[in-house]
């Protein structure tokens, strides 16, 4: 114990003296460098952690290729201990298809934002799902184009303020959001489709199970799998970091509902 700001607290500067086992390390095995320049309170690293933990838990790392789209999360493309193929904005599903078809048996997953997957790359993900490609697409959905500063995407919900919809998205001018997982679930080639979130420890755990199920789907050769992961973006939402988990639930989560939409078994 020690005293900080007049309060007696546990000394957290080093490992405990009493016998204990490590149950979670700073970074998952497959993240080489934890430091990044993403905003305080960003949900994307939280989602990345879960995805990479799943790859390790299933013993897939020596046969996995990750295909990255373009967004804030691209910051992780060159610091993972997983083979990475960098794609263009929206194009990850076609690159992933090329890898998967040319080297069958390779586990391939994509990491894309909502702007990447639902705006620029809508046809790519729909076609890959329709084809039943044996790839797992992970969409980090924060309802904005984060990297350009927080702009309207196809998943932005009505009323949401963004840099280019400062009065809030309205249907007459900006149309309605696309609930991508719901669309993909209707395609016969899609074997597992789910939507999770990382705004609470409980949701992180539930989303992790969805991610594991997506990889299981791919390993089993059952078809296309996708997990949409709602992530916090306090910067893009013009709110404080502490408010982001509730904002996610009340706004994005109220439209893009959390749950498993389709499962092959």
């Amino acid at each position, binding site marked *: 114990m020690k005293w900080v700001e007049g309060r007696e607290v546990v000394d957290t*500067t080093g490992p405990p003296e009493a016998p204990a*086992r*490590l149950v979670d390390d700073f970074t998952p095995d497959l993240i080489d460098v934890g430091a990044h320049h993403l905003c*305080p*309170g960003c949900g994307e690293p*939280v989602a990345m952690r879960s995805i990479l933990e799943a790859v390790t838990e299933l013993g897939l790392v020596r046969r996995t290729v990750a295909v990255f789209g373009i967004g804030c999360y691209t910051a992780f493309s060159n610091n993972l201990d997983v083979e990475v193929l960098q794609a263009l904005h929206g194009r990850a599903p076609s690159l992933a298809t090329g890898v998967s078809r040319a080297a069958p048996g390779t586990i391939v997953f994509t990491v894309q934002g909502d702007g990447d997957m639902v705006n620029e790359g809508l046809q790519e993900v729909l076609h890959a799902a329709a084809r039943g490609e044996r790839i797992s697409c992970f969409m980090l959905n924060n309802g904005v184009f984060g990297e350009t500063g927080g702009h309207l995407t196809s998943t932005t919900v009505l009323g949401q303020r963004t840099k280019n919809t400062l009065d809030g998205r309205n249907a007459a001018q900006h149309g309605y959001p696309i609930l991508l997982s719901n669309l993909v679930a209707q395609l016969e080639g899609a074997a597992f489709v789910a939507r999770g979130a990382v705004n609470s420890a409980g949701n992180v755990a539930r989303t992790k199970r969805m991610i594991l199920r997506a990889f299981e789907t791919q390993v089993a050769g059952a078809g296309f799998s996708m997990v949409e992961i709602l992530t916090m973006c306090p910067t893009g939402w013009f709110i404080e*970091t502490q408010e982001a988990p509730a904002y996610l639930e009340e706004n994005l989560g109220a439209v893009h509902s959390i749950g498993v939409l389709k499962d092959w078994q």
Partner: protein
Amino acid sequence: MDGGAGVTLTRGTVVVDVEACKGCDLCIDACPPRVLVMTSHEVNARGYRYPLLLPGCTGCRACSQICPDFVFQVYKYDSPIELP
């Protein structure tokens, strides 16, 4: 968790990488036993406040799983210890 006579039964603990923290506060609400508190004026080299740990940690990993900046290392004691 009250261990009686002013001690708290503590099942786990964390190591905090203070300099990695960006003061987002997500861990505070995520912690089920609510044993994390942010500093009020102490800041790290980049100017962010960071979490302090009170007795009563259960080693549940909620903090490490919700933290965007890989600040936490989580341990579970072989046997619960008592902390003041």
